[in-house]
């Protein structure tokens, strides 16, 4: 600090050593305190700018989606939109359910029981977004590849999902996500 430049550090000042040291430590404290307040203030000022990039209120207030399940025959699947993402609803066949339950014990990459993934075993409801890098897996339509485990196959980087939407092979780290949902009636489901 230039104002103390005439006084060598540790040398007695015009009013004695203790007063000079005292003034120095007080100045240091003021500088540190000013810096700290300045840093906190800058952080507080910057936060609104950063937070403004988070999902806005209208985006967060997205309505939930209600789906009528009656037209979906056994073995069929439909895709609905929820929060801008596709949601897969598959009316599973008995053998698909049996296969998924039998494979509960197989060495799964992300172990989850099929019973924990489907509230009603015949209805598998999940977010149709590959947990690798967000592509939409194929397997909803009749002619599409279903992968080596009879479920879904992501064409982007080759992830295979089984009949419970669990990751079995490929780069994806997790099973297809299960959105929050509830059966309003036996044939109507509310997602979100």
């Amino acid at each position, binding site marked *: 600090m230039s104002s103390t430049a005439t006084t060598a550090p540790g040398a007695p000042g015009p009013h004695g050593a203790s007063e000079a040291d005292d003034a120095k430590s007080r100045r240091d404290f003021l500088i540190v305190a000013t810096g700290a307040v300045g840093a906190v203030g800058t952080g507080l000022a910057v936060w609104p700018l*950063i937070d403004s*990039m*988070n*999902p*806005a209120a209208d*985006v967060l207030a*997205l309505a939930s989606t209600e789906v009528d399940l009656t037209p979906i025959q056994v073995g069929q699947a439909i*895709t609905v*939109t929820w*929060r*801008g*993402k*596709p949601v897969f609803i598959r009316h599973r066949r008995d053998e698909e359910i049996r296969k998924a339950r039998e494979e509960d014990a197989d060495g799964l990459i992300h172990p989850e029981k099929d019973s924990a993934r489907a509230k009603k075993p015949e209805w598998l409801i999940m977010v149709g977004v590959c947990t*690798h*890098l*967000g*592509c*939409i897996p194929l397997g909803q339509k009749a002619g599409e590849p279903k992968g080596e485990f009879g479920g879904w196959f992501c*064409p*982007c*980087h*080759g992830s295979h999902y089984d009949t419970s939407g669990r990751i079995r092979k*490929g*780069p*994806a*780290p997790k099973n297809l996500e299960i959105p929050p949902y509830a059966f309003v009636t036996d044939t109507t489901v509310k997602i979100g």
Partner: protein
Amino acid sequence: MTTTGTAPVWKNPVVRWIDERLPLFTLMHESAVAYPAPRNLNYWWNYGSLALFVLVIMIATGVVLAMHYTPHTSMAFDSIERIMRDVNYGWLIRYVHMNGASAFFIVVYIHLFRGLYYGSYKAPRELLWIIGVVIILIMMATAFMGYVLVWGQMSFWGATVITNLFSAIPLVGDNIVAWLWGGFSVDNPTLNRFFSLHYLLPMVILGLVVLHLWALHTVKSNNPIGVDIKSPGDTIPFHPYYTIKDFFGVGVFMIGYMGFVFFAPNFFGEPDNYIVANPLVTPPHIVPEWYLLPFYAILRAITFDIWFIPAKLIGVVTMFASILILMLLPWLDLSKVRSARFRPVHRQFFWVLVIDCFVLGYVGANPPEGYFIPLGQAATAYYFLHFLVVIPLVSLFERPKAVPDSISAAVLKKA
């Protein structure tokens, strides 16, 4: 204006009045006229000024395009089709901008490999080199966001795949991705911020280019023999010698660049991007633009977990590391000789790296199936081995050829 010694004397009174208060003309004179450049620079030294030339084209066309573009998911794609069909010369301006991105990367990649070959990263040019690597990183981000603005299928799904990379970050990954998107998927908030950043980042690049040039003019240009400038006889003034040479290079470059603009404007593009973005249908094969393919190949090469770290996170870290590792190069190459011209072993490995990068690009362009997976993994492994093992070992054990005493000695011997 006359030059007496180093400082110019301005005869025009207006110029002199300004220069005495803000030495703008003196700065320009010193950096673009009097700058003492090595007398032996070859055509590989054209690419720096060429890159600046392309940057100016990109900013000029981009500013005009922004006047006609609408950053909204329901209008973005159509506003670009309007630019192509209705706006006066819109087709030309857009094709110049679109192919300019490819031209920019061709020029900058050649500039980068020039630096690698002639050891331009070595002391005292480390910081100059690091600023260059940062410029390339920001260029990639800018190009990626610009591609998203088109709002075609490749735009949308490219944006989805790349932003999902950040979900690999432990604990806060999903929150970061929602923050990047401003929602729960790539949507209108994402498009808006990408437009804002696509306009901002070129200005950041321009600022970094100023630093890059400042550092260059402080430490002076490297040259094909990699020997420092030792006397005034080793240099010639930038103007007229290199201005004329650079202009000739611009002419040759423009023949190729405009050739694409007028005769094959969609050569570098993906047909899928002329389909409007559809969040419910993923294209069967997502590929980035060609200049990002090697990095995409590195990202996908990691298909296995290491201990408890998931493959996805390692892939992302590896991809970013492949660029950041260049920043360490000045300290990985221990050889005292700069130019590969006098380093027989290093030179051979340089070409292996070039081939490796082409292999990575080829793998990145193909689906991750069959032999592309092991090929991509081998090429990725070599890429890192090259920088972390080959370069340090070669620099320690190689016996370089005799290096000329000075630039002028080398030039006169040849003449």
